[in-house]
């Protein structure tokens, strides 16, 4: 039994960290705004996983981490919606959703 | 006696400047000029009155007065109080400043044609900044006034001089760079003395008490920071580059103020801070100062000899005579010290005279190239005689104000107790070499412009651009120079001769302060 040891806290933390890094890398790499927004969701939810993991392992009596991750999801979706909104109005001007084209203001 | 108060002396030019700028002052050129000239003369008389009732306390400060706003001192929490005080040293420079500002305003009658509404207030603001520097008794008040003169000077150089040159910006950057390092030194000094003595004060007098407690290398660090800041202002060689350009690209009254008074701020700062606050460090840095002074002297002289632009010659003349000041200060003896201060005063007068000459010549011939000038003596003989007196003063001929300074510095150099006598003697020889070179280039300047038969393209009238851009021709009287220029030149010539013949009149004023500062040195 002890061969397969139990899932400790740091398993979840490492997993959340991996997703966080992949999400950030995605933001930098993606060329389409939607994929970019999706990656934004990834990094925010990775933080959510982190909170939930800490709540269930450390702060068991009042589980405030769960509430925190609930709020994270809500605000993540709010920003997703705002992102899509801006995407629509930008699409009207630029006729494309390519991030590379959003460089009118530079220097 | 009680009507003599320093804040009135300092802030009256500022108030008058704001008055001229304010909308309900009539915006015509002659009224502004007359009003500011009258004020400048009044201010000069007022500053000389300070001379009469001057009774220095045991620390040499008199007329002390603290400015409080609704009886709360300026920055109580930081221990900084807006106290003004005047001792022998600052009294001399205050009178010199108001004298030169008066002359500048009189001289700018014929030299300034545009934007009077902004020009005279800026000069008055500059004057109040300079007076503030000389009368500030608080370290950070000194710094505040030191910075205050930056912007007026920037506009004075760039707006009325030749417009597109980067000299004004170079001036601002050099001075600001120097003052930043000075601020660093002051802050470190201020807080370290706080951490040692527990009382948070920025008063020069009390700071000088608590000096001897620091570690030596720490004092040396503060000393060098402060010296760096003043080195930029009193141009010591590596940082002097801004002087030539700023002088060339600024109009005559502005360059008179710059050479006459602004360079003295550096010297005054070195005396007040480097010597006043750090006597021991100063005594082991003294040889360095002497060497710097001599380098300054010779470098300035060598450059002046080969210059083709006459204003540059005068600029490098200022550089080399400031070198003599440094040598005087470095010599640690009372004679050297008083010689240095006397040199600053006499250089103020002589440099303004020379610049006035150059300005008059430029106004008539529209060129500063020494090769294109000549034969002006036939056209303006009076200007030649006054110019002769000023040039002889510049060379350092006795009975003119240049000689006592040089002589005192040389004797002071020997009397200083820096051990290798041979080092002192060769320094004296080099200083004296500088004096000979000065004879060389000053006479070259005088001869190339006034003597000689070739009459440069002198015109009896000169074309100037006035307020709204159209050219007006100004016809000069038969004797070649206008009345205001004669007044300025003769006043300067009289002052040069007066101080040459009676040097004691100046020496007595700062006698007390130099004794105090020097027995700090001995202790």
């Amino acid at each position, binding site marked *: 039994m002890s061969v397969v040891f139990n899932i400790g806290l740091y398993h*979840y933390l490492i997993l959340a960290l991996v997703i966080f890094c992949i999400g950030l890398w995605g933001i930098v790499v993606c060329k389409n705004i939607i994929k970019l927004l999706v990656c934004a969701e990834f990094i925010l939810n990775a933080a959510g996983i982190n909170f939930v993991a800490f709540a269930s392992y450390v702060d068991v009596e009042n589980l405030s981490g769960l509430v925190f991750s609930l709020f994270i999801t809500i605000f993540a979706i709010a920003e997703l919606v705002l992102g899509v909104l801006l*995407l629509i109005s930008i699409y009207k001007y630029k006729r494309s959703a390519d991030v590379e084209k959003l460089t009118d203001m530079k220097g | 006696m009680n009507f003599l108060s320093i804040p009135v002396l300092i802030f009256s030019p500022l108030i008058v400047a704001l008055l001229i700028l304010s909308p309900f002052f009539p915006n015509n050129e002659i009224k502004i000029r007359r009003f500011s000239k009258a004020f400048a003369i009044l201010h000069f008389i007022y500053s000389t009155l300070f001379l009469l009732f001057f009774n220095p306390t045991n620390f040499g400060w008199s007329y002390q007065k603290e400015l409080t706003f609704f009886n709360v001192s300026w920055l109580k929490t930081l221990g900084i109080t807006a106290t003004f005080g005047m001792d022998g040293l600052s009294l001399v420079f205050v009178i010199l400043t108001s004298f030169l500002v008066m002359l500048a305003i009189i001289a700018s009658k014929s030299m300034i044609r545009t934007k009077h509404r902004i020009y005279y207030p800026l000069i008055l603001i500059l004057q109040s900044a300079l007076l503030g520097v000389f009368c500030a008794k608080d370290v950070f008040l000194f710094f505040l006034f030191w910075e205050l003169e930056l912007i007026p000077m920037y506009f004075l150089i760039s707006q009325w001089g030749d417009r597109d040159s980067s000299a004004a910006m170079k001036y601002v950057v050099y001075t600001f760079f120097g003052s930043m390092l000075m601020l660093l030194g002051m802050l470190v000094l201020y807080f370290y003395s706080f951490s040692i003595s527990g009382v948070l004060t920025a008063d020069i007098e009390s700071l000088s008490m608590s000096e001897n407690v620091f570690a030596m290398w720490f004092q040396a660090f503060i000393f060098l920071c402060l010296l760096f800041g003043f080195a930029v202002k009193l141009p010591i060689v590596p940082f002097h580059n801004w002087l030539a350009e700023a002088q060339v690209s600024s109009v005559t009254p502005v360059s008179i103020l710059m050479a006459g008074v602004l360079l003295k701020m550096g010297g005054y700062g070195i005396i007040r801070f480097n010597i006043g606050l750090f006597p021991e460090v100063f005594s082991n840095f003294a040889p360095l100062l002497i060497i710097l002074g001599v380098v300054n002297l010779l470098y300035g002289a060598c450059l002046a000899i080969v210059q083709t632009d006459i204003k540059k010659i005068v600029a490098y003349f200022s550089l080399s005579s400031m070198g003599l000041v440094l040598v005087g200060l470095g010599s640690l003896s009372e004679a050297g010290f008083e010689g240095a201060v006397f040199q600053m005063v006499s250089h103020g007068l002589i440099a303004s005279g020379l610049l006035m000459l150059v300005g008059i010549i430029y106004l008539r011939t529209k060129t500063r190239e020494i090769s294109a000038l000549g034969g002006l003596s036939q056209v303006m003989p009076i200007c030649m005689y006054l110019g002769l007196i000023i040039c002889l003063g510049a060379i350092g001929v006795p009975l003119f104000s240049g000689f006592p300074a040089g002589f005192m510095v040389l004797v002071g150099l020997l009397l200083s107790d820096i051990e290798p006598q041979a080092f002192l003697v060769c320094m004296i020889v080099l200083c004296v070499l500088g004096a000979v070179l000065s004879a060389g280039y000053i006479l070259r300047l005088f001869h190339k412009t006034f003597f000689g038969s070739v009459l440069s393209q002198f015109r009896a009238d000169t074309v100037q651009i006035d307020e709204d851009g159209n050219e007006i021709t100004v016809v000069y009287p038969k004797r070649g120079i206008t009345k205001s220029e004669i007044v300025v030149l003769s006043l300067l010539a009289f002052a040069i001769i007066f101080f040459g013949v009676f040097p004691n009149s100046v020496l007595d004023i700062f006698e007390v302060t130099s004794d105090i500062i020097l027995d700090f040195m001995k202790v």
Partner: protein
Amino acid sequence: MAALETIFFYILAAVLIVCSFGAILARRVISSLIFALVWFLGVGGIYFLLNATFNAAIQVLAYVSALLMLLFVAVIPFEKEKYSFWGILKPRIYISALSLLIIFVTLAWAIVDDYLVHILDIMSGGFTLSRSLSTVYTIGERLLTDYSVAFELVAFVMFILTVSIGMICVIKQNEEV
């Protein structure tokens, strides 16, 4: 029982990592959205494993609806836009990858060797998640007592979002640029 959890954990971890890479690297936006959908399901599973059943439910419901909305409103019009697979090999990609690697290594190192983890290991030695009663009750209690203000703020934000959506959409009609 514990072994089952570890197996489940590793499966879900694999799903999460694969789907996130898939979402990033997919050529067509639709496929990346589908990967995202699967990814959110995985997160729901993780929450379930961590005994946060309520969160898992909220998570799955909210994101499925959000992504479907996204699918229909935004994705279809952008279908025709083709992107070259790798685009220009911008240096940005590698620099960001390197810096993220550094962040990952430092934080992982901090987590693994940190004092905190040792304690938890000891604590959670044979410690299995207490299958306490469902967490909904505690979340509800926390929401209404401790974090009521935040709860109000969320309401506010949602309100403002709807207003702005209305306003920005309204822009389309009387368009005077």
